Each structure stands twice: as structure tokens, then as C-alpha cells.
């Protein structure tokens, strides 16, 4: 973990409620894809944990959904403003176990961490397939960004307004994969857990106090004992999840 002060370069809306914020500065503390950062915001006591979408050459990209006071405040910030950020939090994804054809499944606001993971897997010479699940066509973001990385991309919408009609588990049908990675709302994660036939990694979300392992605010029970989502997580292996 590292505490850094980053400058907002860009903060734009991708959909009605999803924004992309690009920060620049010392991002050396970000050591893996699937990690998160914890942002101090004026007038709010607790920092706000946001997953890392991309990090390269001193530029940190966060794609976040406005869900409450913190993210709403972030959405109103402008280029040039400076943020106090704890970076390099959490374990992140382990790509060494992915095999040649990993499947990446992101649902809604669980899509962003899949981006840096996908980039890393491709850089390692693997052929990832990416499933991006949304409720409706107007909620879709980052489809082209994943395609630009060179990944095979399948989009699903619950109402069928774009791509495969149904849930991400419908889009999974008939796809061969060596391993999987997923992030999204818990009902989706549970469905993916049941629908997958290989090992894989899940990224979890929880209300956090500190974000760096001090308060025990985000603990969960696993097969291998108690884990802090912020420290030993947010990524847990399929085999250690108690579902």
C-alpha cells in the first residue's frame, strides 16, 4: 500500500450512471490487476474503495458507477483536482494459473477490473474470451475497449436489447475455457459459481472501514479460514468460497 496524491486528468460519463476517471501521478504502488484504491473525499469520513480498471505509465483509470454520496461527489469532480488515494490495496488476480483460453465474466460495475486483467493475459500470450453482462443496451460500456485489446468479446443484456439475451451464464453456453475470472453483483457471482466447470477466481465487494486490513470490517468466512476482503481478497479462489 502507498498513500499518493493523484491529479485528475479526465472524468467523463460513459453511460447515465457510469463514469471514467483518469488520474496521473505516482502509481507505482499498484502492483497487480484486480487490486483497488481507497479515495479520500471532502466531507466524507470513510474513504471510498474503487477497483482499478487500468494502470499504465503513471496513469490510473477508474470506471465507477454512481451509487451513493461518495461516487456522486466523484462524478462532479473536474480535471486538475487532486485526490488523496491509497493505492495497491488487495491481492488481485493470479494469472499464472489461467491456462491458454481463460474466460472473463464481468457484470455491470464488475466489468472494469476485467479490463486490466484482460490486458495482462493478452500480454502473456493467452487468448481470453470476455463476457460483459448488462441489464440494457444503454448501460453498456467498454465493449470496444476490450475488442481493441484483441479479446473475443460477447455482450449479454437481460432484456435482449443488445447481444445475447439473458444473463452472463446464458452467454457462457457452448464456450470452451481453461479457467475463469469474474466480478459482478453477488447473485451473478453465485450463478457463475454454479455454471462453471473449471477452477476460477471471484472478486468480491464489501463495505470497508480502512481498506488495508486494520479494522476487520470486511471479513468473510472461507474454507481456509477467516479472510479480510480488503487484504487477503478481494479475489478469492472458487475452491475456498463457502457457497
Amino acid at each position, binding site marked *: *500500500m502507498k498513500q499518493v496524491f493523484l491529479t485528475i486528468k479526465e472524468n467523463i460519463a460513459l453511460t447515465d450512471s457510469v463514469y471514467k476517471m483518469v488520474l496521473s501521478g505516482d502509481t507505482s504502488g499498484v502492483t497487480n490487476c484486480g487490486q483497488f484504491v481507497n479515495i479520500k473525499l471532502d466531507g466524507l469520513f470513510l474513504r471510498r474503495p474503487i477497483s482499478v480498471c487500468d494502470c499504465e505509465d503513471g496513469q490510473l483509470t477508474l470506471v465507477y458507477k454512481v451509487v451513493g454520496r461518495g461516487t456522486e461527489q466523484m462524478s462532479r469532480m473536474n480535471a486538475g483536482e487532486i485526490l488523496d488515494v*491509497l493505492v495497491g490495496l488487495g491481492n488481485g488476480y493470479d494469472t499464472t494459473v489461467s491456462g491458454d483460453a481463460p474466460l472473463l465474466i464481468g457484470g455491470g460495475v464488475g466489468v472494469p477490473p476485467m479490463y486490466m486483467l484482460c490486458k495482462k493475459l493478452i500480454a502473456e500470450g493467452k487468448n481470453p474470451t470476455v463476457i460483459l453482462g448488462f441489464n440494457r443496451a444503454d448501460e453498456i460500456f467498454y465493449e470496444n475497449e476490450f475488442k481493441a485489446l484483441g479479446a473475443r468479446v460477447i455482450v449479454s443484456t437481460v432484456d435482449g436489447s443488445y447481444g445475447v439475451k439473458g444473463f452472463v451464464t446464458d452467454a457462457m453456453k457452448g464456450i470452451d475455457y481453461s479457467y475463469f475470472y469474474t466480478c459482478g453483483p453477488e447473485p451473478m457471482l453465485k450463478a457463475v459459481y454454479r455454471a462453471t466447470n473449471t477452477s476460477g477466481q471471484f472478486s468480491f465487494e464489501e463495505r470497508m*472501514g480502512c481498506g488495508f*486490513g486494520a*479494522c476487520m470490517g470486511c471479513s468473510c468466512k472461507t474454507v481456509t479460514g*477467516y479472510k479480510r476482503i480488503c487484504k487477503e481478497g478481494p479475489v478469492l479462489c472458487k475452491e475456498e468460497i463457502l457457497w
Partner: protein
Amino acid sequence: MVTTNVNLCGIELDNPIIPASGTFGFGYEFAELYDINILGTFSFKGTTKEPRFGNPTPRIAECESGMINAVGLQNPGVDKVISEELPKLKKCFNKKVMANVSGFSVEEYVHTCSLLDKCEQVGWLEVNISCPNVHGGGMSFGTSPEAASEVVRAVKAVTTKPVIVKLSPNVTDIVAIAKACEDAGADGISLINTMLGMRIDLRTRKPVIANKMGGFSGKAIFPVALRMVYQVAHAVKIPVIGMGGVSCAEDVIEMMLAGAVAVEVGAQNLIDPYACKRIIEDLPRVMKKYGIKNLNDIIGGVL
């Protein structure tokens, strides 16, 4: 030059700054960030006889200038604390540590305290009779003078190290409880633990915290904490540790003027991991600003 060292129950501290239990783990998360030997000491994660997972999540809620937590005393149990946590701590902390203890019966307090009392690294036992998060547990000891003195007497009978009793603010007369602890042989008092609080999510119309209620801490509670420290420090003769909403060197001096010999810093560590380092580095400057040469000269200075 200013003098920041204070004496806490016979042990000299380089400065009065002590990270509070539950906000500093067993120290090593923070040792990655700075040399934790600069601290006066710290109070480690509340330890019980048996291992505990604690409460279901969510355990944390945002509040105006503060937060609510309902962790519920998650800890590995006293045996593992002694066999695993303390040896790990020894590698990054060479001072005496404060052992924070909780329990659900007098016997549990006695068991845990007597084991930790034998550990060379432990300087003080901080007996938490005030955690509001455990149903029918610690809270009942902290809310009645009789129950509080029963715990203190039993713990004192099996220990040799200073016993500091951590009090709950969720009582009608905190002075009566502090006095009962002093009469029962306590060597010091620390206060305040968190204040019982609650938040409701307007969208779900459910409490934010799975346990419904939890302990409110952070800057917002500072004036209440200061008032209680003032009342207790002027009513007992044993040393008092002040805590509750402390976030800067100015707050430390205010707590000491109210009667605190040392000051614990809690929730601030969670939002600003360098909080204690910053406060320690800032203290000489702030002392100078207010014409304080020696912190011992101001303890209880406000009558």
C-alpha cells in the same frame, strides 16, 4: 526542546500517543508504512479466550464526521495471539505493548488476562468492559459498578501488570463506574469506547449494519469523550487515558488538559494510516505554539 514523555502506571512512554484497540490490528499492517517504535505504545486487537469471527457483514457505516462499526471482537483467541501474533509483533516493535482483553464471563477475563500477564512483551492489560457489539456480553460488565468491580477484582487477583479498565460511554453515570473500578484495584482507566449508534439505508429501509446497531466513533464524538475524560479524571486518583475522536496534536493537548495522562487514537488510523506518526511529529510544534515545555505540566490543568 520540549518534553513529551509521560509515565503510564509506572512505565515511561516516549510520548502519550497510543493507537486504540481495533484500529491497529497487531501492529504489522502499520509497520509496513512507518517505524511503529515511534509510538508511545499501542493497544492490540481485543482478545478473547476463544477465537471469534465476530458479526455478519456489513459491519461498517459512514456517518457525519465519523463511522459506525460492529465488528464484534473478531480475533484469533488468546492462545494464537500468544503463539503467533506476539512473536510476529516482536520483529517490528521493541516496546511494551498494551494487551486489550474482552470476555463474556468473569472466568474468561481471568483466563485471558492471566495468560497475557505472563508475556514479557505485554506492559499493561487494558480490560475492555465496554464493547457494545456483543449480545449479553461485555456490555453488561461496563454498565453496572458492581459488575465492573467484580471483573477488576478477579483480574487483579491473577495478574501482576497494571490493569487499565476501558469504559463504555453508554451509561448514565460513568464516574460511578470509574470509581468502582478504582476501588476494586484498577491501576488506570481508559475512556471512552464507542457510542452506540445506528444508520438506516433509505433505499432498502433496513439498518446499514447487519447487527443493526454498532459503535459510533470518529471526530464527531470528541466533545463527548473530552467531557467524560474530564469528569472521570477529576474523580479518580489513578491515571486516565483519554480517547474518542482524537485526530490531531491539538486534540491530544485538549485531552491532557482535561486530565488524560496518555491519549489513544482510534478511527483516525483507519482513514489516515499515518495519523499517529503525523500527530507525534506535530506535537512539539503545537506544544511550542501554546507555550508548553513539558506535557506533564498540563495534565489535568483545567479544573
